[in-house]
């Protein structure tokens, strides 16, 4: 075996080892350098993996040389390589911006440990995507969740602590539900390998144990991805976490949870079981639509921009659930596209807010008066990201919503298509609030003693890479749509 054959596991192990190294080096700058290097190395490996998968199909890696289904298999297919690519890319970009922001927001004594936790969270997310073993998913999920709790609690406001605690309670219940679900599947099949499970489950799919396992998994993953009624942990956690953490988690953590949902529902259980014999579409569609509308409405009334965007995240997850619930190739293509696109939008928006917080020390709406003139590049990024969130043509948001509306119309569900568009209208309102305050209000007189400057280049550069990606993938859709469609066809078997 050459070095290149070990890439599927190295992409997880490099950040996993970087975590303890960050603690050992102790000095803030050195810890940042380690984290930066590890995330860029992971990104490079994810690029190579994506090229390999594109050239020769899914890669299977036997951990420790034990053959699957006995040993743990790492398996990277089209969707996996796609998700891995954007998770590592976001991590690499966020890490560039992290230095200035973290110095300002996290006490110096904690910085090394902050990067350690960030690396562990990243390793956990990469592991969830790379692994082909159901129990391994649980372990990596807990690695990433536990480190996220620690990261969120490092926010400056003391409410960061209580929101981290709430997230811990809800996240643990979700993870335990997933564990129970996996236990039920193991009980009936005697295997934990996802491919093997997919082969053996149809024989026993009529038993109550498998159905109960399915229900536990759906609710457990629903908690992790902030599915509408289970989203209560998300707004507080995103609002009070350090800005960099919010940018990283918003762009990756919930997306990876959606990936787990896709994996289990469509790959392990199969489309026939999840959406044919079990009424998943009757759950996902209403929950998705209610999520879109209620979270968007709540977002309109928020006075803190971070919280506003957190609610918007809950709404965007609703779109992905609707796409999966439609159960057609177009619908799942739309869901996967939105997964990718929402990571780009929210990555850009929350990084821009990190820049705002860096200069203003606050992300409250009334503190951002007249910011369009003082931080033109940051605000322009927020506007482009916001337009993308609304779904204006020539941005990525348009492409995924287009596919979702198309999928709804394909099945003659025009009220659903209208509701999706209504969600966009609500997004216009909350983005307009931001634009109005930033460009049309006069700067507050009291706060102008220290002139607010543009954010440092180290924050603007990664921010604008994401903003340009928002526009680039909105115009050149071949790559993203092609990959998403290819992944969706694998799930649906080309039907619909």
């Amino acid at each position, binding site marked *: 075996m050459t070095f290149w054959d070990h890439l599927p596991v190295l992409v997880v192990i490099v950040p996993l080892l970087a975590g303890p190294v960050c603690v050992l080096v102790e000095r803030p700058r050195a810890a940042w350098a380690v984290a930066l290097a590890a995330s860029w190395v992971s990104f490079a490996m994810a690029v190579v993996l994506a090229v390999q998968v594109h050239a020769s199909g899914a890669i299977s890696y036997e951990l420790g040389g034990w053959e699957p289904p006995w040993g743990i298999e790492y398996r990277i297919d089209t969707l996996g390589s796609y998700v891995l690519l954007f998770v590592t890319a976001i991590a690499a970009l966020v890490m560039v911006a992290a230095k200035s922001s973290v110095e300002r927001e996290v006490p110096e004594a904690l910085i090394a440990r902050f990067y350690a936790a960030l690396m562990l969270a990243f390793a956990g997310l990469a592991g969830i995507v790379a692994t082909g073993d159901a129990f391994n998913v649980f372990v990596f999920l807990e690695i990433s969740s536990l480190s996220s*709790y620690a990261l969120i609690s490092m926010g400056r406001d*003391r409410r960061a*602590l209580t929101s981290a605690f709430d997230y811990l309670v809800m996240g643990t219940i979700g993870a335990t539900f997933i564990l129970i679900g996996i236990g039920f599947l193991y009980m009936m099949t*005697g295997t934990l390998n996802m491919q093997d499970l997919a082969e053996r489950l149809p024989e026993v799919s009529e038993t109550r144990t498998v159905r109960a396992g399915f229900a536990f998994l759906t609710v457990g993953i629903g908690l992790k991805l902030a599915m509408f009624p289970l989203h209560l942990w998300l707004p507080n956690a995103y609002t009070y976490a350090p800005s960099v953490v919010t940018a990283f988690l918003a762009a990756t953590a919930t997306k990876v949870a959606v990936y787990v949902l896709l994996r289990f529902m469509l790959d392990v259980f199969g489309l026939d079981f999840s959406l044919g014999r079990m009424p998943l579409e009757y759950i996902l569609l209403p929950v998705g639509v209610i999520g879109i509308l209620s979270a968007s409405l709540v977002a309109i009334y928020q006075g803190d921009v971070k919280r506003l965007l957190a609610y918007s995240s809950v709404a965007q997850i609703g779109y992905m659930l609707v796409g999966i619930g439609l159960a057609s190739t177009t619908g799942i293509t739309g869901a996967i596209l939105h997964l990718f696109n929402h990571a780009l939008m929210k990555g850009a928006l929350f990084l821009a807010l990190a820049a705002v917080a860096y200069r203003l020390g606050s992300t409250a709406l009334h503190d951002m008066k007249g910011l369009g003139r003082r931080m033109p590049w940051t605000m322009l990024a927020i506007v482009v990201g916001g337009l993308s969130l609304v779904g204006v043509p020539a941005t990525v948001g348009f492409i995924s919503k287009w596919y979702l509306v198309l999928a709804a119309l394909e099945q003659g569900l025009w009220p659903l298509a209208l509701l999706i568009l209504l969600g966009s209208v609500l997004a216009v309102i909350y983005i307009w609030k931001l634009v109005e305050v930033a460009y049309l209000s006069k700067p507050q007189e009291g706060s102008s003693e220290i002139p607010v400057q543009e954010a440092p280049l180290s924050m603007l550069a990664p921010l604008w890479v994401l903003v340009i990606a928002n526009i680039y993938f909105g115009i050149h859709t071949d790559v993203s749509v092609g990959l998403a469609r290819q992944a969706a066809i694998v799930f649906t078997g080309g039907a619909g």
Partner: protein
Amino acid sequence: MISWSPGIFNYLIVVFLMMSGFYVVIAQGNLIKKLVGLGLFQTSVFILYISIGYIAGGQAPIITDEVADYYSSPLPHVLILTAIVVGVATTSVGLALVVRIHEAYGSVEEDEIHARDWADDNALMEAELEVIAADNRAAESGNESKGNDNKGKDNRQADNHSENETTSKEEGMQ
């Protein structure tokens, strides 16, 4: 050799423990008690996994000269070792958070913490309202006073003049 078969007894215990733990998490306002409930909830799953591995009359899977008819499956036990580690980690992170919360709020009771957050919110809002009220008062007094060193007011007066001019012009045209 164990001849007694547990039947579904273990699973009943699992369900009972799980629901008790879940209830404690939801019903208790004390953060420590919540963690205790969470621990109970997780522990019930450990018993579930261990019960899965048990086969009535099964031997421990150790290779000896004697060959037994049945072996208990060791895999669920190994899996649950990992889950126990995760449980311990969760509890310790949770307790660490409770310590920090106690330092920051001086309480581990949920309702008291919320009350303190509410008080903060109200204080903030009152301060903001006061600022707005002060702004309004300043604006009002500015309008009343006839001082002419205020640039903004000069502009406003200029605007008024031009408006007057346009209206008079319009009148003239009529």
